């Protein structure tokens, strides 16, 4: 298997706070990988480091062999590495369909910046919205959706962009429990059908154990353990970290 993402001893300090210390991990193309850890363990910081939200202090991050740490956020996204947010970020004043249509990947050079939005995108946007269960809401303003629905919309927007790898920050947080099985199913289908590699931060253990083939656990800014769901479940260090013994 080829590695799609390689994180090599990444350090990120915020003043005296060691948010990420010597993090190294590899993600294989086409896999579903989970990232768990107690609150404040540095998971979201790692996501931010990877997608270029802030510069890293030390280390190297490679996506398909290309260095990311010197690139800008939008350049990294254009390479096919997308992320969703823990606190949903959507375009609240626009309809869901519009949110979808401007999420389509376009080379934003001078000749394409002033294009009309092609009509053909409607079909694709509707299909993807139906895929995440939002078809009936497609004409509502995105800001009117509930938090959970906005999470689904973010997922749909990411799919519209046709990424190679998708990093999801707590995709099931704030979502009605009856919907969670549906989401797990959709994430597996995304991975299987569209061959999108998934890297998922998740607090819901049932979700992450059912979804991920491999799991990394962080605590206090460091990588604590890695392994299959079963190994992680039985790892004493992981259990201690969650119960506060670490």
């Amino acid at each position, binding site marked *: 298997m080829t590695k799609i993402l390689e994180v090599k001893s990444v350090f990120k300090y915020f003043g005296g706070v060691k948010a990420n210390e010597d993090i190294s991990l590899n993600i294989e193309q086409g896999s579903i990988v989970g990232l768990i850890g107690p609150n404040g363990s540095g998971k979201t910081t790692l996501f931010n480091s990877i*997608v270029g939200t802030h510069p890293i202090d030390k280390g190297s991050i490679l996506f398909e062999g290309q260095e990311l740490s010197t690139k*800008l*956020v*939008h350049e990294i*996204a*254009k390479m096919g590495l*997308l*992320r969703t*947010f823990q606190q949903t*970020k*959507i*375009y*609240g*004043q*626009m*309809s869901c369909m*519009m949110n979808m*249509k*401007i*999420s389509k*990947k*376009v080379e*934003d050079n001078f000749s*394409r*910046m*002033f*294009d*009309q*939005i092609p009509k053909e995108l409607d079909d694709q946007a509707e299909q993807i919205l139906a895929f*995440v*269960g*939002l078809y*009936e*809401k*497609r*004409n*509502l*303003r995105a800001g*009117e959706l509930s938090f*959970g*629905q906005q999470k*689904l919309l973010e997922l749909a*927007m*990411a799919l519209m*962009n046709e990424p190679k790898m998708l990093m999801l920050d707590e995709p099931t947080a704030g979502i*009605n429990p009856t*919907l969670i*099985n*549906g*989401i797990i*199913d*959709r994430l597996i289908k995304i991975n299987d059908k569209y061959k999108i590699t998934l890297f998922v931060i998740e607090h819901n253990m049932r979700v992450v154990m059912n979804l991920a083939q491999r799991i990394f656990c962080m605590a206090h800014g460091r990588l604590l353990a890695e392994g299959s769901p079963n190994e992680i479940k039985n790892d004493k260090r992981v259990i201690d970290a969650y119960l506060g013994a670490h």
Partner: protein
Amino acid sequence: MMSFDKKETSALTFLVLLGLLAPTLFPSYRIQFSELWLFMVYASTWNIQGGKMGYNTFGNIMFFGLGMYICASTQIAYSFPLAEWTEAGGVKTFVHTVEQYFIGLPLGLVLAAIIPTIVAAFLGYFILGLRGHYFAICTLGIGIASGELATSMTIWGGGQGMTVPIWPKVDGQDVEFLGGSVNFFYTLSFILFLCTYFFLRWLFSTRFGLILTAIRDNEDKAEAMGVPTMRYKVSGWMVSAFFMGIAGAIFGNINGYIEPTEVAFAGATVGIYMVLMAILGGKGTLWGPILGAFIFQLFKEFFWTYFLGWQRVALGLLIVLIVVFFPEGIMGWLRREKPEWFGEIVDKKARLAQVTIKTND
């Protein structure tokens, strides 16, 4: 791609008829009408940043002043040494021939469009990284600073300002080209308004317009989805600068006299009016600033004419009324009351629909 619906067509027809008939119907109000068309340009171009993009700028007045000075200097310098002109302060008289005037003016207008656009591009790259209040304060500073800078420019007459070439005469009679000075600049103002309107109408219908809205709604998200937001923000500011530069050039000629802080870089008056007009009409919409400018000009002329001395009080009152009753402007209020006018489908059923995902399909 560009379909005019009925309401828009009637509004535009009204404005075009008004534009064509106003000089004949209200000949003594031609300058006020010229100002009206220019007001619509100020508000509509401010709206690109303040409304569409969510970047409240107080700096667009800089492009206005810059355009005004550049056009006037070009008009003069095409025929006479600029320094002598401003130094003379009216003691020595320079008279443009018809040919000098009508070559200098178009040249001035072109430069007044191009140079502010280039300035916007450079400046934009430095300051459009600032967000929210920081951007607003920074542009406020730039607006004031450019006024101060102009005050120290002796070639432009410094704090005393400078005069603009007067309409050329032949045998002591004003040249009758396009109906003379007042009608000529009225026509230019009206044409500029129409160009701005059609350009922005097209611009807002493209991906560009939608990305501006996306930047307003959530710039971080747009970045994270791969949009180089800086490129869009800077281009948007360049569009504003282009039209504001020309507007300044025209206004300088209507006014006949340029002064740094009260006429050209008039942040305290025009700089505030453009914001007020856009907010009154409804920022973020194509027609809001136009409607706002229309109401504002009526209001302003009424108070300035009949209640002179009370106009500042009235203006303050207007601001309070806007903030209390129309925080989203008239268009925003209409959009809430009559969403179907704006093509928004308000489907109760869709709003209440439960989201379900079947796991077996």
